[in-house]
């Protein structure tokens, strides 16, 4: 789902940069207030984890493998704003040092995978798990459903961003300048791919990890609630 440079025309990538900049600023302010000095190491480890999660190949049917994005999982643990920063940082490092995803497309990639994916995943998860006990099966079922929906929404968004290129930059002398397939091709392709394969990889990973955490370290699943409590402690008591 990483969009490389050259797929999106300037109108699209500049717009998505302009959308992301205020969102990043809001996130940074929010986290600074909530976490104080804790934010730097916590976000860095969150980002490193988000990077590393993409290195885990998950076996799926027929000997094939796929990897998860993990946006929903990180949002469930650290909350959506921290997930936004963590995934964004991971994406920027991938673009800068590993050539995975474009530089001009950083705005677009962070919008799809860093903003839309964790926020949708997180709020669907919260909706399903209202009043659910920490060890309740509703937690892992909710995590699976939420991550499946979230990654598919993100994939459709990528499809739309690809598809509108033929409208924004129509063919000159018969050849297209940027992404060349219309919406009627790009959206179904992205959607089918994720509905049938990557969506399940994401859901399997998210629900199994949540279930594993329920059995081994349920306190991690309470973190995103606890942070609000922590915020109420007077500044002098918590460093």
């Amino acid at each position, binding site marked *: 789902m990483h969009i490389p440079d050259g797929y999106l025309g300037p109108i699209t990538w500049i717009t998505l940069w302009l959308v992301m900049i205020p969102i990043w600023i809001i996130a940074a302010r929010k986290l600074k207030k909530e976490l104080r*000095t804790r934010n730097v190491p916590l976000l860095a480890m969150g980002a490193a984890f988000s990077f590393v999660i993409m*290195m885990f190949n998950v076996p799926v049917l027929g000997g094939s493998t796929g990897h998860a994005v993990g946006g929903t999982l990180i949002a469930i643990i650290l909350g959506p704003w921290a997930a936004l920063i963590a995934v964004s940082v*991971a994406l920027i490092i991938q673009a800068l040092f590993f050539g995975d995803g474009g530089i001009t497309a950083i705005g677009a990639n962070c919008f799809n995978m860093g903003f839309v994916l964790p926020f949708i995943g997180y709020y669907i998860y919260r909706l399903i798990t209202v009043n659910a006990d920490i060890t309740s099966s509703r937690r892992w079922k909710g995590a699976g459903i939420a991550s499946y929906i979230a990654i598919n929404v993100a994939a459709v968004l990528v499809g739309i961003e690809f598809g509108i290129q033929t409208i924004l930059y129509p*063919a000159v002398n018969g050849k297209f300048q940027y992404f*060349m397939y219309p919406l009627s091709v790009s959206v179904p392709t992205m959607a089918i791919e994720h509905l049938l394969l990557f969506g399940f990889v994401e859901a399997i990973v998210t629900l199994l990890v949540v279930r594993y955490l329920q059995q081994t370290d349920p306190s991690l699943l309470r973190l995103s609630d606890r942070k609000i409590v922590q915020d109420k402690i007077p500044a002098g008591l918590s460093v």
Partner: protein
Amino acid sequence: MKIPDWLSDGTTCPCCAVSVGGKRNFVEKTLVEIASMMERSIFSEKYSSSKGFLQSIDPRVKLITILLLIVTTSFVTKIEIILGIYVFTLFFAYLSKVDLFFFIKRVWLFIPIFSGIVVFPAMFNVVTPGEPLVTLVHFNSTVQLWIFQFTEISITKEGALGALLFISRVAASVSLIVLLTLTTRWADIMKSLRTLGVPQIFVMVLSMTYQYIFLLVRVVQEMHLAKKSRTIKTDRTGEGIKKEQNWVASRIGTVLMKSYKMSDEIHSAMISRGFHDEIKSHETFRIRNIDRIWTGFSLAFITGVILLNYPV
């Protein structure tokens, strides 16, 4: 620091390269991917410390000019000019003492090949109608497939040129960023990001993340290696897959717990060393004449490219 050749040599002894069933399973795939990632970053350090042209440019200047070049490439719509930018990157890779074969391989191995698969159908008249170059099949009647209608399948001139434009833009952009990261130490790139106005907190998180990625990747590698060395027979039945998926999930969960705990420890370590929510970085960069020349040259190059592409 330069890594000696015998240390960066990736060939393993045949004794520890036994694979069960002949086909690579997910454990081996993961191990190979991690190894190639490590190798890539080791190579990066190798080139950033050699004494070439781009290595001598101030990192801030280099970062800004290369980012401007990438943005410019995105605006260019003529194939000749984009190919020109690509040749430009090859030339400066050569001047910077980067092995050209390695550079080309590094660039093309990733994105452009994937983009080639994406762009392949667009070469045909089914997607891009136009003047046929090679006709592969001719049908007697109009064929209706999904939303496409066609009477023949042929590669069109417009399609081929469009595909070439697309691929060369992707390749030129990737080449530019690879050129930057191959010739610059990551710590210098991080410091330079501050001069672009990226807030301190982002730069701090970025550079800390980069360091800990390697630690976590090592942890993941050890997990997979431990599993591989304990696996005698790979089970490919349905139940086996479920078991393997559970194993992967449990390892991801473990990495998560480890990294959360580690963030606590790092925080305590930072506080006990006097961290106050602010980091003072020592700017040691100095603009020299070679930086002024490079800036002038690249700005002239960018202006030339824009004027050639959009004549006034």
